């Protein structure tokens, strides 16, 4: 997926940032969608996977910021942590996609996603504990709690994100990662 031009990556990133604002609005009517699906995570993960780490990082920072400015969600109090968590996702997925080449796109995608999602959640959990409960009894308890509440979202993202990547490859909207595999 490295044959994309700088301009194309930039515009893809712009579109993913816009989707960070649009997707949560589209999910609005589905009950509990925000907490279960984390709709804002999907464009950031995709941006990292497809456009590379600098763009993923930018998407993770700008997506929640713009959404908070335009729609009021996430609330300002959660914004810094959300930006940090999403920036990590964008950064890590991009880095791992660059590092891991197993000749099987499934494997690459799943490894990058699993590592980034786990790392991002652990760090965000710790950050949450540090910022919101300074001096509180147990940081690890907070981090674990946050981690566990986010697990269902993780499962859904693991199922959904590769589906979208394959659809985009099929529609020839992004370059195929291992062209030989096709057919």
């Amino acid at each position, binding site marked *: 997926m490295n044959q994309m031009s700088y301009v194309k990556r*930039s515009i893809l990133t712009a579109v993913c940032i*816009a989707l960070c604002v649009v*997707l949560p609005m589209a*999910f609005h009517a589905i009950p509990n969608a925000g907490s279960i699906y984390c709709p804002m995570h999907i464009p950031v993960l995709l941006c990292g996977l497809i456009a590379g780490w600098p763009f993923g990082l930018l998407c993770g920072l700008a997506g929640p910021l*713009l959404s908070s400015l335009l729609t*009021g969600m996430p*609330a*300002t109090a959660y914004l810094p942590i959300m930006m940090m968590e999403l920036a990590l996702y964008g950064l890590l997925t991009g880095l791992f996609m660059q590092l891991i080449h197993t000749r099987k796109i499934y494997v690459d995608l799943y490894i990058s996603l699993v590592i980034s999602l786990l790392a991002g959640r652990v760090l965000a959990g710790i950050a949450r504990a540090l910022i919101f409960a300074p001096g509180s009894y147990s940081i690890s308890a907070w981090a674990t709690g946050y981690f566990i509440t986010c697990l269902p979202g993780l499962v859904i993202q693991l199922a959904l994100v590769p589906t979208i990547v394959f*659809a985009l490859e099929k529609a020839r909207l*992004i370059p195929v990662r291992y062209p030989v595999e096709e057919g």
Partner: protein
Amino acid sequence: MNTMPSGQYITGTSMLHRLDARGKLICMFVLLTAVILTSTLWGYIFIIAVTAALMLFSALPAAALFTPLRRLWLFFTVIFLMNALFFDGNAPLCSWWIFHITAAGLSQGAQVVLRVLLVVLLSNILTCTTRPMELTGALESLLKPLKLFRIPVEDIAMILSVAIQFIPTLSEEADMIKKAQTARGARFESRRLTDKAASVAPLVVPIFLSAFRRADELSMAMEARGYRNAGSRTKKDRHALHLPDYLALTASMMICAASVFIF
């Protein structure tokens, strides 16, 4: 149909509405610093007074400022209890099992709640008196010094402005796709965790396909017209700051200094 979300902005002509967005953004950061650095009772009272004065100046309906707080009450309760019950202090007022209520813990809990409350109120004042577009413009121009660290600020600005332009189109498209799939009998809810991903696929996959299709078209058009990257382009000069903007900046810095050094 204009589906651009307008955020929390409320049209008005108050003094705060008229200030330059860049100035307001800096003032906000300075005041937030003051909120975070203060630790004495008088310091808090001082900042509460400043926030109240700003609310008056903004001439905003109180509901607009306080409604967002209602969503946070659970969050406030949890932080307060976490700090009150688990704070590792000496001389607990009373102890039960693993819970120790200490004076220090109570005051810590109250302080955290008060800080978050002030942060939310101050940022509400900013977002209610400033158009989202002006705010993003202001952010963009305040990020310029990052160029020193070889960060391509102009490219980032281009990406952000393209992103903003895409929002109304993409949200209309997302709405259409949602309606089309609903009409075909899609149900976006499912009880089982494994089905949940499958039940939103009819919504999410087409939204990404059509968004990426647009990205593809636009980037091809840009490359066809010889666009490389922003590097050399010059942006239209923004308006300079005026006297009221400088006054506001000075005032907020003095408030910050006062809350840190005097109280």
